[in-house]
């Protein structure tokens, strides 16, 4: 994933100012910075939810700058949101099944005639259950999503991202506000996913989590990237330590 000279302003407030970045194909990349630094705006521009005022984004040499969010998602970029987004009224299992890509049953005529849909549903159900086992929610498969704890809902959003078969996961504060044990579990899962060859980009305020799992740290402030490099290097710089780590 690559972006070049991204600019975005909201009513005169500069959220992104000439952001250029090339991400590795696998690994864990942490984006840190104070509130209002432009971290979430960058994620929103990458995923097509916000249009940049200028600049371009590309995915494996394909220009994705002005693509709709659903098309970018179908190209293999999944994301979570700061405010947990799940379909609360359906079961945990159905949330994951919803996320499965290219479902025949999502076509009008196939849905009407139900041709091959039952077989596909059985396969998707097994794959969704396998993902729920991976994140540790298999026992909650038939519960409504709203019945899960906050930490479990974070795990479910991760399972939904994985169900899309995306190679790039963009996670907005995946361990914020969860119990330390649950945070550990989520971080362990992210490491496993990296080892399976995924690229994980996450925004995080918890510097200890960043130190623990990130291969690359990007520090943003006032819409600009002010530092970039391995955590052992970036997080030891006095100005970064003072401003963001304390």
């Amino acid at each position, binding site marked *: 994933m690559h972006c070049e000279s991204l600019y975005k302003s909201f009513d005169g407030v500069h959220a992104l100012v000439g952001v250029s970045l090339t991400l590795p194909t696998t690994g864990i990349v942490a984006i840190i910075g104070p509130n209002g630094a432009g971290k979430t705006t960058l994620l929103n521009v990458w995923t097509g939810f916000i249009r940049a005022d200028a600049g371009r984004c590309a995915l494996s040499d394909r220009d994705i700058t002005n693509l709709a969010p659903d098309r970018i998602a179908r190209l293999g970029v999944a994301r979570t949101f700061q405010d947990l987004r799940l379909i609360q009224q359906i079961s945990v299992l*159905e949330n994951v099944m919803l996320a499965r890509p290219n*479902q025949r*049953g999502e076509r*009008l005529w196939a849905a009407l005639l139900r041709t091959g849909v039952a077989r596909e549903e059985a396969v*998707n159900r097994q794959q969704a259950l396998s993902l729920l086992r991976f994140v540790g929610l298999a026992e909650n498969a038939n519960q409504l999503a709203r019945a899960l704890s906050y930490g479990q809902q974070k795990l479910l959003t991760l399972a939904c991202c994985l169900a899309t078969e995306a190679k790039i996961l963009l996670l907005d504060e995946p361990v914020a506000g969860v119990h330390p044990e649950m945070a550990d579990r989520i971080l362990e899962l992210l490491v496993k996913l990296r080892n399976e060859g995924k690229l994980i980009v996450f925004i995080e305020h918890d510097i200890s989590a960043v130190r623990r799992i990130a291969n690359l740290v990007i520090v943003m402030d006032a819409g600009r990237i002010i530092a970039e490099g391995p955590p052992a290097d970036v997080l030891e710089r006095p100005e970064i330590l003072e401003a963001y780590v304390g």
Partner: protein
Amino acid sequence: MAYLLHILIITAIYVILAVSLDLLAGHAGLLSVAQAAFYGLGAYTSALLTVKMGATFLVGIITGMLLATVLSLLVSLPSLRLSDDYFVIASFAFQMIVFSILNNWGALTGGPTGIPGIPAPGVFGGHVLTHAGFLMLAATCAVLSYLVVWRLGTGPYGRVLHAMREDEVLAKALGKGTVRFKVTIFAASTALSALAGSLYAHYVTYIDPTSFTVMESILVISMVIIGGAGSLWGPPLGAAVLVSLPELLRSAGLPSAAAANLRQIIYGGMLVFMMMFRPRGLVGCYSFGR
């Protein structure tokens, strides 16, 4: 007996309208106030083709449904790329335009005097003339419409519709092309409304624009709200309740003018009651719209 059959036929026609709107509003969370316009398009297309061109009932019905599907794109394609609020406004505008055309394009539609002498439907070469025969036809169409809505409202397709209704941003983030779903579901919904219109035209054998006003759209919306949006039995139940209500008032022996006013008061009261105490309708799963 004929009176009872008449009530059942009208109920079956309104069941089609109610489930067609429920597909859109209950399952996908899109509110349209143009159901009566598509109902009218189906009625007028079928009436004009059979009366003026001698086409068969089946040709009339299919052409009406196709025309409604094509014209639905005029509302959905420009407005659904924006927020759903624009869709409501666009559907209202379409409703007013269609009514205006039906009322004013006298050379084609007969204007306020409408189209008389619409033939009873011919199915498989025969003419369904009796009330019982028409009831079978209307009930079959209602059941088929119900099955269409049930199939689209459940399974993978229904999951996407429900996701769009609950959280469109999430649906997009999961790679669901929500505009495509909205456009197709609106087209399917309008085709069903047109089917109801064709049946109505061939049943009453005379149509005029007053049957296809925005008040008719609001009546269908009331049926969905009172029955329960997004539920299996809610919209048919709502249709049955609101079709039966005027007949019950009539049987109470009230003068027709008083009954008409009382009916409006009861509709209003029922809607307020439902919103306050049963926002999910009589048997509904979800509250109306988003």
